[in-house]
């Protein structure tokens, strides 16, 4: 809760900084603020309280996901320093990012449909602007436009679902809805409402068959913004999705399990198979992010005691791996004027450091031990297996084998293909530091997964 207030005030400070012309100080202030927010967040552990008349609930689930979001945001700010330097309206960028972080925290801690809706919108509206922040680039425009239309469209479905559920249960409160569900007979509009909300949330987490906007938006947006969308937005959306379906709609399990089953299988296959055919690394990572949503859907579907910690660990492993890959793609794409897979040719010789970090991050995304991604997939599959979804576990294993193929295409390009030029790519020292730290973090999380798993 304190973290939420601090992040909101940081956003306001970022807006005021424009007036008092202290722009230069803003970057360190924001980093310091994020560290403080993390520390304040830790103090909320085990202090479960319903705040603001039960509108929000900062239980351990919320605190763990808030912590993850703040850590990833901190790494993202280190990665995106250039994004805040290049234009004159840099404070707008700070404020937009900070406000969308506020939305993300609201999405993991809501206890009322109103807060879910406001959280999603506070997260999304700044993201629409950030996706189009490269104003003269037509693909950035297109990305922002598609994101806005699809976001608003999905919100429409979500709201219609909320309205129907309100009509059936007379409440927006998650626990009151759960009580209404368990006490028995609800009119059929409740189940229509659940399905509409499922569609709305599937759009937000980009699960197939509602994923088609994601690759376009991810490819067109500036790479640092794509990194933000692929990590923080996805984590928050999934935490919100899981919270909704594991508390309020758990009693109506039979209505949605079959649909989520099909959705998970489709997401895994479509995401991984389409990624194989991509030549742009950014678009490939976008499809791979669709595929990763499929793995997380597995744990959501399982809905057992393993689910929460499995999704937390998966989101952590995936976000940290993605920060590293997007950071490197950004460096390579700006140095070589293109993000095709062939621009990675020969990177193992020219920039061995970048190549090693990229390899570790990709191995983690592919789920190969001893990286974090292996245990992330392991816990997800365990939770699905315990719930008895054996067929889905098989599909997930086949899908991750396909995943290994396209992740290895980049690794092979880096080590076994000759580069046209032997030019060394310039890397800023803070990026080097970040990449080494992230690589160590991935390996440490892979060796000691318990430190995250035991949290929930």
């Amino acid at each position, binding site marked *: 809760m304190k973290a939420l207030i601090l992040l909101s005030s940081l956003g306001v400070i970022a807006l005021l900084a424009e007036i008092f012309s202290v722009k230069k100080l803003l970057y360190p202030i924001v980093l310091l603020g994020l560290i403080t927010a993390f520390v304040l967040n830790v103090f909320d552990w085990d202090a479960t309280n319903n705040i603001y008349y039960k509108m929000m609930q900062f239980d351990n689930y919320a605190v763990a996901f808030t912590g993850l979001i703040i850590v990833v945001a901190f790494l993202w700010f280190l990665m995106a320093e250039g994004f805040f330097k290049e234009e004159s309206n840099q404070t707008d960028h700070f404020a937009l990012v900070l406000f969308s972080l506020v939305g993300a925290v609201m999405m993991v801690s809501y206890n009322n*449909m*109103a807060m879910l*809706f*406001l959280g999603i*919108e506070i997260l999304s*509206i700044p993201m*629409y*602007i950030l996706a*189009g922040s490269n*104003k*003269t680039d*037509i*693909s950035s*425009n*297109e*990305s*922002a*436009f*598609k994101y*806005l*239309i699809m976001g*608003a*469209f999905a*919100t*429409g479905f979500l*709201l*219609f679902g*909320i*309205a*129907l559920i*309100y*009509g059936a249960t*007379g*409440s*927006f409160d998650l626990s009151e809805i759960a009580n209404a569900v368990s006490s028995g007979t609800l009119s059929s*509009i409740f189940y229509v409402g659940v399905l509409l909300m499922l569609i709305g949330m599937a759009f937000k987490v980009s699960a197939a068959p509602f994923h088609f906007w994601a*690759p*376009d938006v991810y*490819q*067109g947006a500036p790479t640092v913004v794509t990194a933000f969308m692929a990590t923080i937005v996805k984590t928050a959306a999934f935490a919100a999705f899981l919270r909704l379906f594991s508390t309020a709609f758990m009693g109506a399990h039979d209505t949605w399990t079959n649909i989520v089953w099909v959705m998970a299988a489709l997401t895994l296959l479509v995401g991984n198979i*389409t990624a194989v*055919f*991509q030549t742009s690394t950014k*678009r490939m990572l976008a499809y791979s992010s669709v595929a990763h949503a499929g793995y997380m859907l597995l744990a959501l579907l399982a809905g057992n005691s393993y689910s929460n910690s499995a999704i937390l660990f998966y989101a952590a492993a995936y976000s940290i791996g993605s920060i590293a890959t997007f950071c490197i793609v950004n460096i390579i794409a700006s140095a070589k004027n293109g993000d095709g897979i062939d621009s990675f040719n020969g990177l193992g010789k020219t920039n061995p450091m970048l190549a090693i970090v990229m390899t570790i991050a990709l191995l983690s995304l592919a789920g190969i031990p001893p990286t974090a991604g292996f245990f992330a997939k392991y816990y997800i599959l365990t939770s699905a297996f315990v719930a008895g979804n054996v067929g889905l576990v098989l599909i997930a294993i086949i899908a991750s084998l396909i995943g290994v193929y396209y992740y290895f295409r980049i690794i092979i390009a880096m080590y076994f293909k000759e580069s046209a030029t032997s030019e060394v790519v310039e890397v800023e020292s803070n990026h080097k530091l970040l990449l080494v730290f992230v690589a160590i973090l991935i390996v440490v999380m892979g060796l000691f997964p318990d430190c995250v798993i035991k949290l929930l």
Partner: protein
Amino acid sequence: MSAIQIIPIEWYLLLSTVLFTIGVAGVMLRRNAIIIFMSVELMLNAVNLLLVAFSSYLSDSKGQVFVFFIMAVAAAEVAVGLAILMMVYRNTKSSDINILNKLKW
């Protein structure tokens, strides 16, 4: 029985569903960006109507408060949407969304 309850709730439900469907069809079928925004607004207003109707039938004010949130957010969304549309228009001199086809697989 209040005045609003003379009409059965099913009728409100039907009207909202029809409005919502028109909105969805508009987003999917129309090619002009402004009309797409209008269709999105229609979807949100269908929801507002439904929430107010339920709120009145349940004699509960929460639904009406929710409508205020939706109206505020919809206004913010349209403001951002029109700004993005202006940006697109400056680069392409058109509000037809078929021109936005650079990103494809």
